[in-house]
């Protein structure tokens, strides 16, 4: 099934004509309404009027996550706040994004495309185990599932036992979660000895963090589902940017709304077709928060050729690594620099530390190893315990995920 065949199966030249139209309009809007973009374009002396082809986009400067952060909170909005009906933010709250009523509508359609591509129909009972909060995941998928007319259960994240009870009792047929959480659910089921037949699950849509072949196989085997990967990021829209169809041979990019480039992360020159590089996205339809040549830092490559499903949109490889040091833990982006900042905020200075991400068993965990000088004062154990608690609470609440803190000898920080 294809949600919008007239948009997802367009001839290449028809698509290119639409992209050029939309690109010229979004550049005109960004130049007129966003001082940041106007300044940037002026600096490189490119008049958006001179963009006559899709290739001309390359003459415009890139936008980085740091640019977005520097314009916190509303500096890059292209419409007045009164037109904005929704505000989301990245996990560490350094980037704020807005949506107009139309943006929400577009988001629903694009997410509906991805759900349908992953095998979801209006007859499905969709359990959405993604956060319904400041992050974009839960809401985006929710709108898409409602758009299709599926029965939506907004379980949000956490409380594994309740999730599994709902999955059994409510006869969930489609699960939406991060790969790590889906793997955790499948393992818990397995440990409980619940037979696969006790579930009604058919498909799982996984996103928010990298999906490895191993984890996909485990989830598919244990849950008896077709598991598809999908990709999105809050700076660009949230989920809805790209997603696999049931062929599972690359993620179809919603190219009529997102213009993508793949560039060498060092030279920033486009890589030869099909080669890996950093994904760069320009939004073509976003009203409230357009981004022009946004460097995602995600490494991927574009697949040549057409897909057996009939969609003509270009496919990208699953994202397995990044071109920066941002860690993705359970769908949450963790910037090591932010951890250092928080350390300073909590303790006044940052002791030597290391961030340890363990992917043992699919469920990622983040541990902060803090080096302490050999403490002769054993009566300080209580103080140390308090310090650990303070760090753990502070980091967990600020980063939006559970962090363990361990004190170790400084020597063990060096590997």
């Amino acid at each position, binding site marked *: 099934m294809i949600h919008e065949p007239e948009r997802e199966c367009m001839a290449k030249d028809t698509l290119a004509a639409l992209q050029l139209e939309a690109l010229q309009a979004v550049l005109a809007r960004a130049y007129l309404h966003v001082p940041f973009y106007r300044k940037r374009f002026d600096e490189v002396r490119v008049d958006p009027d001179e963009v*006559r082809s899709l290739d001309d986009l390359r003459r415009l400067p890139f936008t980085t996550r740091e640019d977005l952060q520097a314009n916190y909170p509303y500096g890059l909005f292209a419409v007045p706040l009164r037109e904005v009906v929704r505000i989301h933010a990245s996990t560490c709250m350094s980037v704020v994004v807005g949506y107009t009523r139309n943006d929400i509508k577009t988001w629903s359609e694009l997410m509906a495309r991805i759900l349908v591509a992953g095998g979801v129909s209006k007859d499905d009972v969709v359990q959405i185990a993604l956060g319904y909060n400041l992050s974009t995941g839960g809401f985006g998928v929710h709108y898409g599932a409602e758009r299709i007319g599926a029965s939506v259960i907004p379980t949000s994240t956490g409380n594994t036992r309740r999730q599994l009870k709902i999955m059994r009792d409510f006869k969930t047929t489609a699960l939406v979660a991060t790969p790590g959480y889906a793997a955790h659910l499948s393992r818990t089921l397995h440990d409980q000895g619940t037979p696969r037949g006790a579930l009604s699950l058919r498909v799982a849509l996984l996103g928010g963090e990298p999906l490895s072949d191993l984890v996909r196989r485990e989830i598919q085997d244990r849950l008896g589902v077709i598991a598809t990967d999908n990709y999105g990021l809050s700076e660009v829209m949230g989920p809805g940017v790209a997603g696999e169809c049931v062929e599972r041979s690359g993620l179809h990019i919603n190219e009529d709304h997102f213009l993508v480039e793949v560039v060498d992360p060092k030279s920033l020159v486009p890589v030869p077709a099909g080669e890996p590089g950093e994904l760069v996205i320009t939004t073509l339809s976003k009203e409230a928060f357009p981004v022009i040549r946004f460097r995602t830092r995600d490494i991927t490559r574009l697949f040549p050729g057409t897909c057996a499903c009939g969609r003509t949109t270009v496919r990208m490889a699953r994202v397995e690594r990044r071109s920066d040091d941002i860690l993705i833990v359970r769908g949450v982006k963790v910037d090591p620099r932010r951890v250092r900042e928080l350390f300073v905020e909590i303790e006044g200075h940052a002791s030597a530390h290391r961030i340890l991400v363990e992917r043992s068993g699919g469920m990622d965990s983040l541990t902060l190893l803090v080096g302490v000088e050999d403490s002769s004062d054993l009566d300080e154990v209580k103080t140390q315990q308090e310090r650990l608690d303070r760090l753990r609470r502070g980091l967990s609440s600020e980063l939006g995920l559970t962090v363990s803190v361990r004190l170790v000898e400084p020597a063990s920080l060096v590997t």
Partner: protein
Amino acid sequence: MPERKTNALPVAPAAAPAHVLRLRNLESGYGNLKVLRHVSLHISRGEIVCIIGANGAGKTTLLRTIVGLVRAQSGEILFEGRNITAARTEAIARSGCSLVPEGRQVFAPLTVRENLLLGATAQERREDRVPSEDQLARVFALFPRLEEREEQLAGTLSGGEQQMLALGRALMARPSLILLDEPSMGLAPLVAKEIFSTIRRLRDEGNTVLLVEQNARAALKVASRGYVLENGRIMLEETAESLLANRDVVRAYLGRDLDAEQAMDTGR
């Protein structure tokens, strides 16, 4: 109006390109004055697409450039897949692209019938031409009022009737694309409403229409998509429904919708 199906005006063969009209980076203007700046847009078969924009945004220039009355300075115009950027106006009209100009411009001293038959001359050299009388019958089916006034001089018609005549004259050429410039301008609200319901019928019968209108709300209600033109640039392309919901567009081009406000007030 399904009972009118038999009178449907002809549509182009299915093998034709997906876009009836495609503009790419079109620039035009008058002398040194550049009015349109790299306008790119498209119209698919059977669509009503509406251009909205303030006075002076370049809407009329856009239509006049498409039919070659104003020369494109750069860019290209593809009509039915053929590049017509440099074509002469008569050739463009003969190839099936009809402009209904602002202010009707019917031939006042001629009768309704004569006006309509003049419109048919554009299709005379086509291999698939139909007898003018057959085409006349189709137009009369769409506008019974014109049949009633068949022998009346066009100059004596009311404004609404003249607009119908201008539309009917364009249809006589059996166009695959109709360009409408401000069809409701200067008409009483009720008459304008009638014109819009005629446009809706044109669409139901498979015609493709590019509509330029000051009355953006009414235009968006019959259109499937719209482009917002500002200072000669396309600023927004959306479905008509989305444009009607876009508060910026509403404020800038649609004015207040007193009906809707009233409905909301009473709803409360």
